């Protein structure tokens, strides 16, 4: 297999947009192509990460629409749907196409238009990914996070404030990211006084409903002119877990994150101690904690304490969610996995302005459903030993 480089990346402004999902995907794709300096070049493959353009906007055939909009015919194209892991799964498809030799140049674009419907309707569309059995009981994604949070606090003696500290951190990072949905810092008190959604979790523990898109251009490393700061995909792993929460041996473990992480580390020939910066799938604050444990950054039951002590802040030893995370940057479902990788690539290249951290190796963890699948990607800057 060939080594694959990320040669261009971009995201749109996340928030409420007047554009439809095709317009958002086209905007991000054009910016990524521009970033790659590839004016007029022919793409072999286009992969589009999107969950529910049909449900949100009545649009199917999304990959073809994007190819037409960008004039990329006769590139091969497909939409990749993997619920909230759609972006990461589309990236993995693009990586496979280039690594296998099938594709010399691939575009990976992820996007979702969510504000076309009411919050109630959006919650219902997202809840459709739950297993029918659990869905019949009335579960929503936030309610599963509430079950997890109470169990975590009870077993490990975590404080409610530690979870709030994650929201505060991610809002603080988002305030330094001009493309984040929220540009506003918040306090622990703001989190603890916000309305209850699914106790013990409150409004500020959850990501918002957001429109947005992100795109990446992938090419074989061997075809690239030697560049000081090119970004290489050094490891990638994907795995599943049960679709239901109730069938997991331990409600506080996310096996898909653990296994995908192990596979990515093995391919990259590194361990969690080598990661300098990470983007995790913080749909709810508690998930950033559990994922940071499954990826081996902290022992099980210790992730909350690390967050409370500031280990994962921008100036800490392991910055997590420098982009603002899903919490503050926003979670346009199909865009998220692609946007996470774009943030890590830009961190490795030193292009993150006021939220820049020192990093040579970074990790992105994109989660499908409520942990029913995960894609973990490790990126390395080419000049990093």
């Amino acid at each position, binding site marked *: 297999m060939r080594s694959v480089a990320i040669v261009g990346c971009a995201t749109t402004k996340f928030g409420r947009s007047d554009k439809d999902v095709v317009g958002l995907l086209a905007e991000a794709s054009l910016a990524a192509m521009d970033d790659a300096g590839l004016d007029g070049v022919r793409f072999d493959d286009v992969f589009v990460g999107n969950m529910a353009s049909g449900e949100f906007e009545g649009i199917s055939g999304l990959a073809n629409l994007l190819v037409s909009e960008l004039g990329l015919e006769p590139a091969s194209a497909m939409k990749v749907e993997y619920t909230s892991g759609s972006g990461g799964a589309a990236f993995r498809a693009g990586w496979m196409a280039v690594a296998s030799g099938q594709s010399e140049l691939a575009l990976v674009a992820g996007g979702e238009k969510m504000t076309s419907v009411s919050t*109630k309707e959006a*919650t*219902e569309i997202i*809840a459709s990914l739950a*297993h*029918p*059995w*659990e*869905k*019949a*009981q*009335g*579960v*929503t994604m*936030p*309610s*599963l996070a*509430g*079950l*997890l*949070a*109470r*169990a975590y606090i*009870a077993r490990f003696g975590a404080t409610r404030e530690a979870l709030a500290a994650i929201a505060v951190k991610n809002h603080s990072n988002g305030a330094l990211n001009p493309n984040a949905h929220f540009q506003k810092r918040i306090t622990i008190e703001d989190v603890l006084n916000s*309305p*209850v*959604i*699914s*106790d*013990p*979790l409150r409004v500020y523990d959850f990501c918002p409903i957001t429109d947005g898109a992100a795109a990446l251009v992938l090419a074989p490393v061997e075809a690239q002119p030697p560049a000081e700061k090119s970004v290489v995909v050094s490891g990638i792993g994907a795995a599943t877990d*049960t679709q*239901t*929460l*109730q*069938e997991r041996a331990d*409600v506080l473990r996310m096996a898909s994150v653990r296994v995908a992480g192990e596979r990515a580390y093995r391919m990259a020939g590194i361990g969690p101690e080598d990661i300098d910066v990470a983007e995790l799938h913080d749909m709810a604050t508690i998930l950033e904690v559990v994922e940071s444990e499954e990826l081996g950054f902290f022992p099980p039951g210790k992730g909350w304490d690390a967050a409370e002590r500031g280990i994962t802040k921008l100036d800490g030893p392991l910055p997590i969610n420098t982009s603002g995370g899903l919490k503050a940057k926003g979670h346009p479902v199909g865009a998220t996995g692609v946007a996470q990788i774009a943030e890590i690539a830009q961190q490795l290249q030193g292009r993150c302005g006021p939220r820049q951290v020192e990093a040579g190796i970074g990790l992105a963890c994109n989660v499908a459903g409520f942990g029913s699948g995960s894609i973990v990607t490790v990126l390395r800057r080419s000049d990093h030993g």
Partner: protein
Amino acid sequence: MVSLPAYRCTGCGTVSQPRRARCRQCGRTDVEQVELRRGKLLTFTRVTATRPGYPSPMILCLAEFEYGVKLVAQVDDASPELEMEVRPKVLGARAERTDQPADVVLVRSPPAGCPVAASGRPLT
């Protein structure tokens, strides 16, 4: 006593709920029905932002029953506590939800003094 079905693989004995087309441990497709009668509350959450057709607030839980089977279910108790004993109660599907394939399960705490299911060990 009210019970709820779960599905035991005739090959390896693994009990599943909901039923699967194929056993995740041994790959067999044949199952026999077993009954879940008593459990304990592992965790719960009071949901205020509920889906259309569901009460708000509504308490959801994860409870563990015989054979180590766990269920996400509604709780019929305004003040649940972790480790509380629970029993299943199957609700009739409501008209607006007849298209859904699953029974809606509600668990309620039984009278004091009932033995509690221990993980993986049948009480029956």
